[in-house]
């Protein structure tokens, strides 16, 4: 009888170990890597000047956005496993071309392995999470900051920099474009075969063309000579940026 009691914990350990191995075999890590450009040029904070419509030059200080509600898409086109609640993708620390090439990565743990037909990203903070507040999170959580108390919304994206609107060489126009509000939340599905395997690095790459967020395909653009600040959910230009975001982001092959 004593021997049975002695072996029971051993059996439990062996069984637990086997289950753990199964779990590890069915789950893997997935890295979402984001790079940003301004048209053809890598997006670098401070150190580069970008040509912008209306003979304007533009320098960046900050470009960041939230992604949320990220799902892998099953082969039948329906939503598969949810792999991410929310993450803040910030290029604020990108100060060189090598850092721009490296991009910003979001590492997802314990993603089910398998074959998928695509991935869906929420661009911004999805409406459910957008009802929460910073006090609901630990201080290193992405939603512990970037909150508009007066608008009851997170700031989904920030584009900040300086523009030279008169060709003087002085970048006197401070550009701060802050967009939030449920009406500016967007979802985009990237249909592309995805195979996630256990025991090996899995990575999906995304590119964002910041210029395309500010200039649509008809040539309409946010004119920094007329407007340099958007701090709103309702501004038509906030909606313009949000709509353009759908076209500005693409999945790298």
């Amino acid at each position, binding site marked *: 009888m*004593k021997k049975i*009691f*002695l072996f029971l914990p051993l059996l439990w350990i062996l069984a637990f170990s086997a289950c753990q191995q199964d779990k590890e075999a069915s789950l893997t890590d997935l890295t979402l890597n984001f790079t940003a450009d301004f048209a053809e040029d890598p997006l670098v*904070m*401070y*150190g580069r000047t970008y040509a912008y419509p209306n003979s304007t030059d533009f*320098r960046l*200080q*900050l470009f960041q956005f939230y992604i949320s509600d990220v799902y892998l898409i099953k082969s039948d086109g329906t939503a598969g496993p949810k792999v991410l609640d929310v993450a803040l993708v910030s290029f604020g620390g990108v*100060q060189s071309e090598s850092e721009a090439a490296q991009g910003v990565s979001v590492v997802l743990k314990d993603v089910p392995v398998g074959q998928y037909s695509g991935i869906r990203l929420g661009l911004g903070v999805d409406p459910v999470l957008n009802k929460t*507040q*910073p*006090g*609901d*999170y*630990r*201080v*290193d*959580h992405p939603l*512990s*900051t*970037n*909150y*508009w*108390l*007066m*608008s009851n919304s997170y700031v989904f994206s920030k584009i*900040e*920099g*300086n523009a030279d609107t008169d060709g003087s060489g*002085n*970048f*006197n126009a*401070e*550009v*701060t474009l*802050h967009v939030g509000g449920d009406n500016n939340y967007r979802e985009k599905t990237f249909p592309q075969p995805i195979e996630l395997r256990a025991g090996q690095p899995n990575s999906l790459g995304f590119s964002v063309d910041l210029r395309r967020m500010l200039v649509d395909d008809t040539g309409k653009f946010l004119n920094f000579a007329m*407007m*340099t*600040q958007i*701090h*709103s959910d*309702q*501004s038509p230009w906030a909606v313009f940026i949000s709509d353009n975001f759908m076209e500005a982001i693409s999945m790298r092959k």
Partner: protein
Amino acid sequence: MRSIIFLALFLASCSKGSPGVDCTACEETDVIEGAYMPEYVNLELPAWAPEPLEVEDNPLTRQGIALGRRLFFDPLLSSDGTVSCASCHDPAKSFTDGAAISTGVEGRTGTRSAMALVNLAFHSNGFFWDGRSPDLESQVLIPITDTREMNTSPEQVMEKLRRHGDYPRLFREAFGIGRKSEMSFEQLSKAIAQFERSLTSFNSRFDRVVWLNEGWFTDAEERGRQLFFIEPFVQIDNHPGCSHCHLSPLFMDNAYRNNGLDSVGTLEQFSDPGLGGFNGRPFDRGKFKVTTLRNIALTAPYMHDGRFETLEEVLDNYAKGGHGVVNEDANILPFRLDEQQKADLIAFLHTLTDTSFVNNPAFQKPVP
């Protein structure tokens, strides 16, 4: 079955051992008597406060905080016994010292103003104006060893503490050591960090009005609140934009920014390079940590070098919109406020004063 019990006892005894100390060489007087019964505590926080960072290897205990508090107020930590942490971090001033530049031993002065110690448990991106310390535990070493501040060394401090009448017992109560030779600077740092982590402030009038619906703002305070937080639908020129960096509920954003104080031709010309001086990144020169505005009315003078005596001066400077330096934060925009609006905004800033924080008996100098 008996062998299993012996094995368990053996493993338990192994885990209790104090690393790095050869106790066969310890003298009898080295032994510290007393109990070790740590009482783990959680910070008491309101629902609107974020969850603080977890520090797995330094959990808060009543005994650890008590030791940290005793050390924080003790000038024994300086070379000549004249300067304590509290010399530059006075609870009555929200743990600042009222000086533009703080003074250390023998009247030596540094280059920066003492930072307020408020809600440090929520700092997730480094400490000091230039972010040089990643956590509170490592922060402790710097003022103690800085020749302009406390001007001593970990070895000298620990030698004094081991000879002290109370500290060996307090270290034992906090960390369970059994001998004076086991007292370490790491334990000292952890204890002070625990005390500093306990300094939370969420009981200002702003908190009570906004989050608890207790009372109302005055008309001036309410107008000031709107100026502080407002994000206008259309572009206007009386938009100070305070809340871009000083976000509720912490009224800071854990970021480092060039807030437009200095006009320099090149980034190399900043007399104090701030973050860039620490991390070596050129475009981070002239950036300093965004401070909380909680208790801001108590922490004059302002900025990293204490250049502004009053909140009025701070507002007037921000209203100028900076100097156009390449890495100057884009949110530093010129704005126009009339005298009434400035008074309103300052009235609102005063609602962030938490008198229960500065008067909290648990944060005052302990009676030995």
